[in-house]
């Protein structure tokens, strides 16, 4: 009987130790549950025209489980075509040692790559040209600490020209304004030069540095007997997407009945006939997937660069203002027709 008691006591003792051990482990585990990491993302929105990318990015990040204020914070900085501002913002991101930099457009992306070099901060660009700007090694393996969602490339310029020619088949002099020395311009200009050469179309390239300079140029053309252009083609660069520049061009085009398009914008009643632009929101969403992959541990430079899809917007009302009837085939291809 005594033996039995001893056994029972031993069992009870072991049971108590087991329960206490489990309780201790549980409490220890509970104490060791660390706070979830809060990712800090620096966002440089370098062009208001693509501001939708930030919304798309944040929205998709939320879908992926990154809740702002809980496990992710965003430092969204805006600057429009201001290299100095870009540099200041990006350097601050580096100083803050953010976990990720999301940047657009092309010029800001190139700067981000340069400034973050050696800082071990991954960079995701969006809506940036990669051709001829030394932003990535290849699309498949961008290298360094950078990846992103590229702008569809020079093809978008030639496609815009094709659409312009579909809308205004008889034009012979096409004026192409662009921001001087902007990185994405040369490849586009080169492409459309090659395209128009056999068509007998005169390509009038105009590089500008500021709205005032642009205004002066157009004022001069307005003052002359012939404005020297049958149509205006807006290529993928900041002049076409910045209200200060766009307003001057649109006012001139409306005044002189010069059809214009390429980038779609509607500003103070002035609008372009068409725009073939990447979908900013969609681009931002694609960036979110890349960010998630980086947060999961992938090196940015090993993640292939993806490409945004172009979205064709046609403004039938504006077209009619310029006496243009949009072909049915083109209307069918449009993602959005504004009437």
């Amino acid at each position, binding site marked *: *009987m*005594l*033996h*039995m008691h001893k*056994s029972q006591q031993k069992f009870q003792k072991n049971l108590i130790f087991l329960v206490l051990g489990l309780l201790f482990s549980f409490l220890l585990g509970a104490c060791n549950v660390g706070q979830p990491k809060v990712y800090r993302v620096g966002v440089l929105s370098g062009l208001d025209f693509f501001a939708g990318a930030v919304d798309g990015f944040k929205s998709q990040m939320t879908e992926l489980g990154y809740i702002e204020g809980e496990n992710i914070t965003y430092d969204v900085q805006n600057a429009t075509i201001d290299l100095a501002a870009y540099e200041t913002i990006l350097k601050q991101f580096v100083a803050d040692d953010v976990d990720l930099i999301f940047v657009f457009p092309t010029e800001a992306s190139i700067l981000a790559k340069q400034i973050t070099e050696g800082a071990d901060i991954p960079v995701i660009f969006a809506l940036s040209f990669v051709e001829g700007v030394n932003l990535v090694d290849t*699309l*498949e*393996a961008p290298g360094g600490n950078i990846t992103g969602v590229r702008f*569809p*490339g*020079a*093809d*978008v310029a*030639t*496609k815009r*020209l*094709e659409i312009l020619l579909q809308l205004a088949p008889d034009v012979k002099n096409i004026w192409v304004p662009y921001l001087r020395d902007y990185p994405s311009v040369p490849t586009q200009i080169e*492409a459309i030069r*090659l*395209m128009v050469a056999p068509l007998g179309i005169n390509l009038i390239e105009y590089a500008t540095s500021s709205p005032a300079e642009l205004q002066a140029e157009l004022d001069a053309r307005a003052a002359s007997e012939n404005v020297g252009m049958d149509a205006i083609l807006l290529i993928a660069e900041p002049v076409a997407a910045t209200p200060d520049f766009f307003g001057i061009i649109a006012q001139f085009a409306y005044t002189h009945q010069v059809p214009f398009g390429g980038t779609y914008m509607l500003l103070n009643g002035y609008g372009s006939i068409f725009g073939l632009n990447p979908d900013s929101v969609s681009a931002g969403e*694609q960036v979110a*997937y*890349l960010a998630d*992959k980086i947060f999961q541990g*992938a090196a940015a430079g090993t*993640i*292939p*660069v*993806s*490409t945004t*899809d*172009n979205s064709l917007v046609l403004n039938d009302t504006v077209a009619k203002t310029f006496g243009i009837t949009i072909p*049915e*085939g*083109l*209307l*069918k*291809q*449009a993602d959005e027709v504004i009437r």
Partner: protein
Amino acid sequence: MTEQPTQSPQNNRSLVTTLSVPLLLLSITALVVTFIVQILFYIPTQRTIVNTEQNLLAHEAADVVSGFIQAKFSEMEAVAYISNVVAASPTDQKRILENLLGLDHGIRQIILFDSVYRELSSVSRLSAFSTEDPVKKINFDVFVQVRQADQYVSKVYVDEGTGEPMVVMAVPIRDVFGDFQGLLLTEVNLKFMWELVAGLKVGENGFAYVVDKRGNLLAARDTSRVLSHENLNHIAIVRAFMTSSATEDAVSFMMQGINETQVVGTYLPLSDLDWAVVTELPWQEAFQEGTRALISIILVMIILAGIIGWAGLVLARRIAAPIITLTEISTRISRGELDLHAPVSGPKEISSLAASFNTMTAQLQQSLLGLTRRTRALETSQEVSRRLGQIFDERQLVSAVVREVQSAFNYYHAHIYLFDENQQNLVMVGGTGEAGLTMLAQGHKIPRGRGLVGRAAETQKTVLVEDVSEDKNWLPNPLLPETRAEIAVPIVAGEQVLGVLDVQHHLTGGLSSEDANLLVSIASQIAIALQNIRSYERTRRQAEQETLINTINQKIQQANTIEKVLQIAARELGQTIGANRTNIQVSLPRKVAQEKLS
């Protein structure tokens, strides 16, 4: 009583342990065997269930991917058969193709060929300036194949500008007689399939992807991997697809997935395409239900083992309890607690054992009691003998004997009767307690033959009455109201009854033949003692008489005359008998008397 040396038990395990451990082991063995049998049946069943579920998931995924391709074919066939596009004007042809292009964002280019493969019209989502002829990217056997088949899908190739996977699809255009009129060819960007594949729900944490027969990843939730042009031929299930025939149904097995984790992978070849949809589900999730069921089974097993163990322990305790009680009682009895009794309860065998044990204990107790009593009797007898040897007074002897007998055996009362000189009445000459003194003072006596005492004297035999209320000859004594049993033992010397030793007990049955035997022994000693006293008394008296005679003789012999002789004799005799006056009358012969007178 000599104490036997106790032998230490060889086995230290308790009976409860001895009983419960085999019970527990047996039950656990039974449970384990049941568990193993269940597992043996359960694993294949669970595998079949998981395979079936994965098969269904793969079919759903395949339907989505096939739907993507079939939607393209449907659109192309609508153009090919309904709009009579080959016969239409170039403008209409262009418009029709543009409509189709606008209809489906996944289509990047459309080219219309006539029956001799001349290009009639084309439209592109890209700039015509930079667009490459998709036909150049595929084998020219597309024309041959489309003539023979209703649908054609090329092998996947990668667009150099975007790195995105592309495929050429084509359908023949036939007239109402079925004659080949041309073909409609489209270049389809498979990235529009990515979103569909990414949206496929494979459990909670699973996913699907699409590979071609070369193992190239065509669509996946992680588009980066597709853009990396990852080849998955190192994945077991992909390799299985690459080496399989296209007609096989879904195949599942455990493997290391593309994220290098253990998954249940399933592939399902897509009909008319050299692609397969692969689903991967983490094995934990795939076997989640099974694991839960398994855990439930284990828990039930543990609970059952616990219950059986507990029940076994309770049963063992219940079985062992009477034995343990018996053991405890026997231990206590061995230490001298002879009045203990084992409870007669439990199973039949145990209760029989307890009863036998009690009987054995009772017998032992009785034997010990008898032995004790005998020892006591012996001691009492010795004490009586010792005292009897020292007492030469009959009354003192009687008083001492009754006291000794009464106190030694805790009798209610003891007294001794002796016959009077006439041998007719038995006179109480000594008794214990107040009653004894009272009766002595009253000169209590019983006629010969009356009552138990009288009968014992009459018959010279011991009279034992265990219940006096049952004996009509019993004479109640108001001084002894609590008498319930009585023994009357004749005190016999030779053939003569001297008296009766009478002992009374306050309990019915309180006196037994053993008491009777004891008292007989004591009565015999009393008889001897009485005889001795009486003999001594007689001897002493005789000696006294002889001494007196001698004394008188000596005095008489000193007398020198008859008168002195007579005077001495009269004086001594008078003193001896205490007479106030002693006269001696002497009758002399006549001659002597005359001489004297003369």
